[in-house]
């Protein structure tokens, strides 16, 4: 990985033409749409984007319209990383024959369903084979495109249409799968987490991921007003709260050496600034049923679990 210096300023971003263009059909306040617009501005040169089936694939490519200013490929749901593998193999072969003359970056995009669940096999395989691509997971914690169903990325307690808040079962009982730990276990050169409220941090991580000569993984936490039952105007607020409550700490690991990124580092340095899980959950319709006496223990359990994961993360970062 090169250590090239660059800065993303608001002015730079405003001046760079959009590559994920307006006119797409995402909902008001869509977190993932904001993410795509920003991260496409962090590309560094010729780039091919490939995407798994999902909200962000659908909203930007309704024939005969497109929101993509880059060459873009969608083939199916479970195979964004396999698409990237094929593109990478083709570019290498064509370069060898002199038919491709410049380096082309590859970004694979998938939601939590296309990463945690149906896409994990293709992802793991592509990373093991060392293809040169950046995999960006935009995590809105559910199958929102099909109408808000539970995924392996849905957090404990959340009500979805397949884990409804019933009188006996109060939403999803299981924990959110630790996807970044799984990716780190692949001995990847670059794994990081980000969320769009901290846009400079997120864009910087996209660029670092692209600079890696091999596979890189970026987990972006992207609130979904429709699926989370939150106000569209509060998307960035929840993005911020997820970090402040340590529900979604931001960090990056270069060759396995993990460092907290500034927003989370500030909380580590001043623990009194850490917000409670309740602060994050309040106002999210998907957790509304937890704010009752009989379900309060679930929030307590979530707080305990969040603290535990945070403490573990601090230890892992200290070791680095």
């Amino acid at each position, binding site marked *: 990985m090169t250590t090239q210096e660059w800065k993303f300023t608001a002015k730079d971003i405003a001046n760079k033409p959009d590559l994920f263009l307006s006119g797409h059909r995402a909902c008001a306040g869509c977190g993932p749409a904001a993410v795509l617009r920003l991260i496409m501005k962090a590309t560094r040169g010729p780039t091919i984007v490939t995407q798994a089936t999902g909200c962000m694939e659908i909203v930007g490519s309704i024939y005969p319209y497109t929101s993509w200013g880059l060459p873009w490929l969608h083939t199916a749901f479970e195979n964004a990383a396999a698409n990237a593998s094929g593109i990478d*193999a*083709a570019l290498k072969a064509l370069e060898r024959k002199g038919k491709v003359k410049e380096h082309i970056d590859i970004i694979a995009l998938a939601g939590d369903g296309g990463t945690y669940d149906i896409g994990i096999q293709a992802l793991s395989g592509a990373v093991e084979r060392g293809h040169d691509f950046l995999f960006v997971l935009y995590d809105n914690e559910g199958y929102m495109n099909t109408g808000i169903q539970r995924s392996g990325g849905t957090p404990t307690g959340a009500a979805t249409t397949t884990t409804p808040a019933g009188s006996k079962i109060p939403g999803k009982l299981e924990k959110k799968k630790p996807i970044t730990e799984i990716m780190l276990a692949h001995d990847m050169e670059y794994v990081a987490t980000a969320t769009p409220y901290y846009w400079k941090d997120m864009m910087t991580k996209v660029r670092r991921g692209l600079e890696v000569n091999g596979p890189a993984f970026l987990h972006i936490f992207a609130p979904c007003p429709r699926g989370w039952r939150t106000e569209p105007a509060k998307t960035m607020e929840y993005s911020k709260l997820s970090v402040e409550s340590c529900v979604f700490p931001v960090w990056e690991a270069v060759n396995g050496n993990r460092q907290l990124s500034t927003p989370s580092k500030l909380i580590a340095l001043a623990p009194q600034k850490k917000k409670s899980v309740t602060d994050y959950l309040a106002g999210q319709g998907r957790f509304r049923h937890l704010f009752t006496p009989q379900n309060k223990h679930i929030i307590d359990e979530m707080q305990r679990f969040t603290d535990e994961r945070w403490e573990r993360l601090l230890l892992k970062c200290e070791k680095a």
Partner: protein
Amino acid sequence: MKAKQETIPLNGDEAVALAVKQCDVDVVAAYPITPQTIIVEKYSEYVANGEVQTEFVCTESEHSAMTACLAAAVTGARTFTASASAGLALMHEMLFVTSGFRAPVVMAVANRALSAPLNIHGDQSDSMAERDSGWIHVYAENAQEAYDNIIQAFKIGEDIDVSLPVIVGLDGFTISHTLENVNVLDDQSIKQFIGERPFVMVTTQEGKTVPFKLDPANPMTLGPNALPNYYFEFKRQQEEGMRNALRKIQEVNSEYAKISGRNYGNGLIDAYELDDAEIAIVCVGSVAGTLKVIVDELRQEGMKVGVLRLRTFRPFPLEELRNALKEVKALAVMDKSMSFGGFGGAVFSEVRSALYEVNQRPTIVNYIFGLGGRDTNPHELRKIFEDLARIAKTGRAEMSVQYLGLRE
């Protein structure tokens, strides 16, 4: 101009691997499965020894293998994969996507039974189950033809008017693992024959004419979602590619005959002693070899018998089949797969339907045979002709669908 040829002993899988090597393929993405495995093993040796420039991707599943081939093809690469049985079934979703993209991926299928029960041996259940996936399906009779068909498949599938993926079927073990003397063309002749991969040209918003592929210089959105207002037209265009393939397969068969001295009927059907035949058998794949020997024997005995091998099953050669069989009085169709709950096998259904509008259509019966690698011997095949002779005389068949070589 005739190519230089060399005769070397190869099994069907090795012959396929050699053909792929000679076709200067850019990307091979594959996953091992019996009885296809020798193809990828052999190809891996070419890669390891620097005999090819191919990027070889050992994917973690057949689903990813087909995905990677498709993605590589739309990035501009000539691509190949091989599979069989469960592997092909796992690709099912991506087969439709690949044909929908009009991506000319070539795939060898070493035809094998489907589970359950698990069985690694040869039958055609796997590719017959994919007959509606939008791929061109060409079946070989022997290792020589498997070799020849791979070379032709690139030229057919990559043709601009066709632009479709091609499955080259070779019967598992019977062809894939059986050593034959194969006449191999020289590299240069093959290179000239198939040429560089052509691309469909499209006009950009700026009015530039550019190749249809992923290219940062000319960004295109590939694989959009088409709603009910457009989807149907895409599918109709795909069918047009299939219609064009009927012509292209015949052209390529003739052109290839010029350099190799070998042709396979007209490319669509391989008619053997059919001109004056009163009874005939329609089949797909290697069983045609044995049937032709029996036809020779029966002709010696004075019987007017013939064989029609469907070399191309998709697109289905309707007119050619009708013309070839219009004088036949009794016809047997052999299926090496089942269509559970249907009326006979897939080939039977198609052939019977094709002959419906023939004025004096023959009495048609179906023989399902060889499932899970069950051996089919010449004696059994001879018996079919004997049954047909009886049917031709009476014009009546007692059983429309029968199972050959089955314990019942």
